């Protein structure tokens, strides 16, 4: 006579999932030994457990996701780290007697708005531990962009626009860099590398976005130069053209409006542009912009008499 088996499936699932205590597991194993049905069921359950696997991931996409995350993290740390390790540490050394006060003042000065002093202490970070995620710049000798990772043991990377990672990091620096310096270096790099490869759509969109909404005038200007260089021998994408037309009519910076006009003039103009150019010709407060607009209209074949 054998003991009647209860064929308890839950217990088998737990055994198979390694979730039973040693004594429980031993007792269930004995039950399985003596019961054909339970043995078969346990076999099926392990089949179920191994039959379903998460799909494989694309390592390139993972690396991109990680890099983008670090850019987002880095952009909030980069400025802080530069300021902390450079200027503030410097000042701290000089005003040793009142370091907290000096730190508080400086943080307010650089926009970290510690509302009232002592409310949130700045992170107690040693200089050596403040690590930029990465930085990018144009290396004239090498003729390439160089990406430096401020991490011991991480090799720097260099390449031109045909290098996907370089193009991607440039785009990230343009869109996510909180620090004017890195956006400026990225724009310079794009301009210098413009002839090295067809601009990736993402990179081109990032630059157009800067032309549209970058708050720093000098960087909007650089963005237009970079755009000009990128499309030196090809037509401007429609988006880029639109952004230039908007800059031409409404940018507050004279230099930006002139650069926008020059870039538009260097490319094909369309009949629709005439209206915008007329408006600029008659109302821009900068004489160079006005005469540039007139010149463009003439080149478009619109007789000067008609313009008066």
């Amino acid at each position, binding site marked *: 006579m054998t003991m009647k088996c209860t064929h308890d*499936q*839950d217990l088998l*699932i*737990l055994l198979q*999932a*390694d*979730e039973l205590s040693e004594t429980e597991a031993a007792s269930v194993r004995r039950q399985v030994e003596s019961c054909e049905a339970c043995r078969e069921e346990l076999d*099926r*359950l392990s*089949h*179920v*457990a*191994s*039959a*379903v*696997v*998460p*799909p*494989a*991931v*694309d390592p390139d*996409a*993972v690396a*991109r*996701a*990680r890099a*983008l*995350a*670090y850019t*987002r*993290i*880095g952009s909030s*740390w980069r400025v802080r*780290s530069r300021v902390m390790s450079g200027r503030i540490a410097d000042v701290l050394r000089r005003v040793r007697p009142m370091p907290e006060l000096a730190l508080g003042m400086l943080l307010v000065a650089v926009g970290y708005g510690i509302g009232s002093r002592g409310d949130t202490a700045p*992170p*107690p*970070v*040693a200089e050596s*531990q*403040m*690590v*930029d*995620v990465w930085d990018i710049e144009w290396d004239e000798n090498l003729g390439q962009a160089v990406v430096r990772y*401020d*991490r*011991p043991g*991480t090799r720097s990377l260099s390449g031109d626009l045909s290098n996907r990672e370089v193009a991607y990091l440039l785009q990230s620096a343009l869109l996510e860099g909180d620090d004017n310096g890195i956006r400026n270096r990225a724009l310079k790099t794009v301009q210098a590398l413009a002839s090295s490869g067809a601009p990736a759509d993402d990179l081109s969109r990032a630059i157009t976005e800067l032309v549209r909404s970058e708050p720093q005038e000098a960087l909007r200007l650089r963005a237009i130069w970079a755009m000009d260089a990128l499309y030196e021998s090809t037509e401007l994408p429609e988006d880029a053209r639109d952004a230039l037309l908007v800059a031409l009519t409404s940018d507050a910076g004279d230099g930006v409006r002139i650069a926008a006009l020059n870039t538009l003039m260097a490319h094909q103009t369309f009949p629709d542009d005439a209206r915008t150019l007329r408006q600029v010709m008659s109302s821009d407060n900068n004489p160079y912009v006005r005469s540039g607009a007139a010149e463009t209209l003439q080149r478009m074949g619109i007789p000067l008499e008609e313009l008066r």
Partner: protein
Amino acid sequence: MGEQPNRMGSRETDWVEQAQRGDTGAFDRLVRENEAGVLRAISGILGRSPEVYDVYQDSLVSAFTKLRGFRQDSSFSTWLTRIAVNRALNQRRKTRNAREAPMELAEHLPADSRDAASNLEQSELRRSTERAMESLSERERAVFVLKHTHGYKLREIGVMLGCAEGTVKNYLFRATRKLRVVLEPAYRDL
């Protein structure tokens, strides 16, 4: 801090402390050590979808932001996986249009049975497995994946999902039974 439940021991503890002080290099080391596992959890829940990478990206940013609050009462891997799993579950709730199958039937069937079964049968089996995975709730799927591809304890999964161990156990039972029914024909062919 009392016990150190993490497997990597003091090296991980050091990295976490460095990262908490803003050392992104240490954070990167932690991330890379745990990358494969975290991605398996996310893709287990979301399937073959570009959202996997967005969720991974968001999880890393979120982890770095919350890092100061991490008291090392679990391993870093459990803590990061928890963040990722919750983000993946939220994402899944948002876009429930399951165009893509969340899981694939592994090629675990022995070669001869695969030969024996016609292509038609194979693809039908695959479809029904995919349907079965779809029929699991997000949480059932998450529990199943965390248990069987990560080997987490039900207690740990409970902490990750914010529910009692008993509840997790029930998710595991339900998920296993649903899948078992679907995989029955494949089993019979063995």
